[in-house]
């Protein structure tokens, strides 16, 4: 596990290197963006959940999307992946216009997401969940499904790929169990593994680490890096700053629907605008600091705020 983390593959360097010269400011242009979004606005009644002027996501890198609860991260995910419609805005994925495109097509274009509230397909086995994630299975067509020789070969490939991923995610022992019998953390793992079955260009993970035990988190971080090193771009939402600091090549910070900061992890966590967004007006703290997210400190900060 630690070996995976301590020896980043060459690609990791190139991702970080590619972003080295990029200015750490909101909406900055990237050298090789896979997503380019402009003026994306989503309102719920009078409340503006997302209001993104300009956002670019670097290809081949791990980008973390952070921000306090209710910042609009999940809503932005929903918009980009076609699960929600914006009031206005346009975006491109891999040079293709994707606004107004249905969720299924977005996924087929190579942009696969997971959900904050896990969606395991309960009365399918773990293996079937995985198989469903695969693409190019001719047997998913009505007429071809009737003739097994037309899809049996592809099914074998898919099954082999699924079993390999299940081993990686430590779910191989569960492969014949119903997904509904998995624990919350295992469902998170399954959902991530399932998203990878499609070999997407870009995988968008909404809090992949929530509810996963710390030991497994370590290996999960390793997996995410492996995924990146194999050429998939990763965009993920996470609240745990330690994780973000450890694997993200780039961090985008949202607050109240807007992008308030961007940059490499260490720079972003010292950014006053970010600390503001999370903690109110306490500019002298670094969010990446081991102690700052501990409950005691937060309570102290809140108490101070109350007395001010």
């Amino acid at each position, binding site marked *: 596990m630690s070996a995976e983390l301590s020896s980043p593959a060459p690609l990791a360097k190139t991702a970080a290197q590619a972003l080295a010269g990029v200015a750490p400011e909101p909406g900055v242009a990237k050298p090789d963006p896979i997503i380019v979004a402009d003026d994306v606005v989503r309102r719920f009644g009078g409340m503006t959940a997302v209001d993104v002027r300009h956002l670019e996501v670097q290809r081949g890198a791990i980008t973390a999307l952070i921000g306090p609860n209710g910042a609009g991260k999940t809503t932005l995910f929903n918009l980009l992946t076609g699960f929600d419609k914006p009031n206005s805005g346009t975006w491109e994925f891999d040079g293709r216009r994707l606004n107004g495109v249905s969720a*299924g097509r977005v*996924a087929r274009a190579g942009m696969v997401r997971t959900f904050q509230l896990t969606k395991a397909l309960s*009365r399918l086995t773990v293996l079937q969940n995985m198989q*469903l994630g695969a693409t190019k299975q001719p047997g998913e067509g009505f007429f071809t*499904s009737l003739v097994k020789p037309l899809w049996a070969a592809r099914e074998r490939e898919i099954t082999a790929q699924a079993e390999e991923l299940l081993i990686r995610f430590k779910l191989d022992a569960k492969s014949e169990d*119903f997904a509904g019998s998995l624990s919350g953390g295992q469902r998170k793992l399954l959902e991530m593994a399932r998203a990878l079955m499609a070999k997407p260009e870009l995988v968008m993970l909404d809090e992949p680490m929530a509810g996963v035990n710390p030991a497994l988190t370590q290996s999960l971080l390793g997996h995410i890096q492996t995924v990146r090193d194999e050429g998939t771009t990763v965009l993920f939402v996470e609240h745990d700053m330690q994780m973000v600091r450890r694997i993200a090549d780039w961090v985008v910070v949202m607050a109240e629907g807007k992008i308030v900061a961007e940059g490499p992890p260490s720079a972003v966590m010292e950014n006053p605008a970010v600390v503001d967004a999370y903690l109110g007006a306490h500019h002298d703290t670094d969010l990446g600091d081991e102690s700052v997210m501990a409950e005691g400190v937060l309570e102290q900060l809140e108490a101070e705020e109350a007395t001010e």
Partner: protein
Amino acid sequence: MNWSDLLSLTAGELIAPTTAAYALAAIGLNIHFGFTGLLNMGQAGFMLVGAYGFAATAQAGQGFPLSALVGVGCSVVFALILGIPTLKLRGDYLAIVTISAAEIVRLIGRSSVLSDITNGAAGIPASRFNKDFLGLSVLPDGRTALGPFAYANNVGDGWWTRIVAWAAVLLAVLLVWRLMSSPWGRVLKGIREDEDAVRSLGKSVYGYKMQALVLGGAMAGFAGVLFVMPASVQPDAMGRSMTFFIWTILLLGGAATLWGPVIGSMIFFVALMFIKTVMRDVLPSVLRPEQLEPLAGILVGITLMLLVIFRPQGIFGDKKELMLDVR
């Protein structure tokens, strides 16, 4: 009580054309509800549409194959009309639309609006549309008795109808087996569990739901053809209570199972006939004959309730599946 009469009456239900027609309709509903999670509350409407399409074509002098094809085609169109506006919406909308559409078909059928085709509430007697079907029979004329089963060969309620009906049921079971153990069936089951998850994996959920609705509806259409063959197209015999009987059969046998709808239908009609016969024998002092039918209906309702409460997985269903926490 005459036990041998009771036995032959109830045994007859095992292979009756009606039992087969209901089994086929329940197989269709199983594709909708059991495998895809679509709440179709108007399966009888699909059957009635199919029966009208068939009877109208056959009355016009066309042969059985073409007439049956037209009947099934009418059900397919019915499925498309109901599916296009509702399958993008939440599941409950399909339930509301199917139940009302089925009622609309029945009410139009029994009114005088289209009485040239439907013959209003009186219905179309089978003699007007089953001649060509019976003419296709490979059986010699006459009667055949096999144990308790003694029927004429080539009449509406005879052996030929039974053979064709049960062959259709077996074919449908085979088709469902092939489809549901294929990747196509896997997508349907995924949709039943969580549409959005399946969408996020790049499948066009709407298209799959439509295919499922059409396939199950087409089966109901042919079930309608089989159902009317022995007697007549009677709109009032194909109303809400028929839909609920089909649901009872499906839940009795077990939704999302292969043989559940078939065995469910057999058990349902044998039990119903048994109850009716016994009641007719035992209760005549208390109940008039015309009161027996509603009482049997009440018993079916109670059975359905008890089933859902105590054995929701049906006879063939896997209890383990239902115990899952479906989040």
